[in-house]
């Protein structure tokens, strides 16, 4: 039954992409939803993770340096470390200043990372990108349905572990301090909480999670190029969080599912309706659809589908 198998392969691919976006969105939720840190360079931190993992896991090659051929999990861990470190440095430089500096700097990071990926050919392969990135369960690649399901299972496992880990972390006294700092920084300081210290922790951890999402995406597709990491990615992740519910980890996952489904469905629809020569222009309708959902959410349900809880700590079962 080739049709059914094809459907399974497509379905698992589709859900896997949702999972990968959900991971990035969970990272943003820690930064923005919990802590109020405005990151407009998400694509840059995702790219750092993707390239790190690619360089660590690809076999030796003459196209670019790296090619250490390390296990995939090491690549993902390395991605979290480099993205986390990059976020830490950006945070350390700007979090003491007024909050707009962080936004400007993250934007600069994304632009810089994009330029580096384009131009540092010996490191990143330039505009051709990096190919032959080892994929998990590569041995099943000839059976797309099995391959897709195995990858989906792995990605779902990562999302679940991340979700549980983040819930434990933010629905705790630590998460309560983040909220307190976001809501009333001076009052939090008067109670002994160092805003800079907590913001830095949340920003670095959120950045590491974004890096992980980039790494998993790179390993899943097997090929990366600079154009994967344009500001439209940042826009998408932001929309997912706002629609799903800023400050709520389940909302972040839900938002990822909803927005990616809309994105794919409008893409499918325009592909059916418009003739091939109009396709490039019709693609703009995808962004229009997302924009409509975003505006609708902001007007009708500004806290998103799932809002923030009044009781922060899970130990108080409120």
């Amino acid at each position, binding site marked *: 039954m080739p049709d059914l198998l094809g459907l399974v392969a497509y379905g698992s691919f589709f859900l896997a992409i949702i999972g990968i976006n959900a991971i990035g969105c969970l990272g943003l939720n820690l930064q923005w939803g919990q802590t109020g840190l405005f990151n407009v360079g998400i694509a840059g931190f995702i790219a750092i993770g993707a390239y790190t993992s690619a360089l660590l896991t690809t076999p030796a090659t003459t196209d670019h340096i790296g090619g250490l051929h390390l296990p995939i999990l090491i690549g993902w861990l390395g991605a979290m470390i480099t993205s986390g470190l990059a976020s830490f440095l950006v945070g350390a430089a700007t979090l003491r200043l007024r909050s707009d500096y962080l936004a400007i700097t993250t934007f600069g990071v994304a632009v810089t990372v994009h330029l580096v990926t384009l131009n540092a050919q010996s490191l990143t392969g330039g505009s051709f990108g990096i190919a032959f990135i080892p994929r998990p369960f590569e041995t099943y690649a000839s059976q797309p349905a099995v391959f897709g399901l195995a990858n989906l299972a792995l990605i779902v496992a990562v999302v679940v572990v991340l979700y549980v880990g983040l819930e434990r972390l933010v629905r705790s006294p630590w998460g309560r301090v983040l909220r307190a700092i976001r809501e009333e920084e001076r009052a939090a300081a*008067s109670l002994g909480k160092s805003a800079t210290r907590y913001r830095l922790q949340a920003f670095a951890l959120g950045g590491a999670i974004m890096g992980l999402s980039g790494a998993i995406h790179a390993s899943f597709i097997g090929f990366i190029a600079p154009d994967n990491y344009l500001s439209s990615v940042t826009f998408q992740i932001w929309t997912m969080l706002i629609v799903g519910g800023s400050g709520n980890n389940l909302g972040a996952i839900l938002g990822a599912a909803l927005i990616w489904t809309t994105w794919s469905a409008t893409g499918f629809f325009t592909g059916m309706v418009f003739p091939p020569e109009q396709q490039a222009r019709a693609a703009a309708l995808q962004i229009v659809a997302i924009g409509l959902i975003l505006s609708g959410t902001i007007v009708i349900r500004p806290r998103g589908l799932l809002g923030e809880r009044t009781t922060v700590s899970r130990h108080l079962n409120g």
Partner: protein
Amino acid sequence: MQDRPSGSTGTQATGASPILSTLSLSKHFGGIAAVDGVSISVQRGAIVGLIGPNGAGKTTMFDMLAGDLKPTAGEIRLQGRAVQAEPAHARIRAGLGRTFQIPRPFAAMSLVENVMLGKQGQSGEVIWPNWFRPGLVAAEERRNFTEAMELLEFVTLQHLAHEPARVLSGGQRKLLELARVLMAKPEIVLLDEPAAGVNPSLLEIIIERIGALNSRGMTFLIIEHNMDLVSRLCRHVFVMASGKLLVEGTPETVVRDPDVIEAYLGGAKV
């Protein structure tokens, strides 16, 4: 913390070193000297008042004492240590807590968690124990919850414990701030107009509670326009006007001081 009778005097040389003192403390905003060379000293175990007409510089004084504003000049000594260069979040560890004139509740958070944030040294405020020692964090949370509920009861807000702080009235917000700072168990508390917007029967309770806390050794420095509260709680008051320390003494003597009367009636005289 030593036990002292409520309202022992504030500044005079009794031999004991003061818990909090300032030396020629000044704060300039552009051309205005909001605080201008003020030296005060608060003895451990005292309840001391800081009064003066609107705009005298009292809150600015508190903001410097609490580390929210860097002084333009002068020194702040807390428990014998110069702290004026330290950040605000380091004050509570040095034993100093404060409330704000305009309350600053964590509006979207439940009252009980507002108060729990005051607790110092929580393991769960560090990342790792939440993942690797959840039992420890849970046990601490239970204890802190009980403690916070007692404090909410103390300020008569226990029935709202699980409501978000944004539902509170102005007076209730002042009470929440009091409970929150007490949760931190400071040795000295700066209260900025604790009576403002609080109804008379509740005010009686607050006065009584401050006295009770003081008899257990807690030191208070209180900004207040309500002279009833001041004269009942404070043995010693500082009077500020136009950024300067005008006089100090017992409430009874300072209210009869011609300079003080002049400052309150005639717009500040310098």
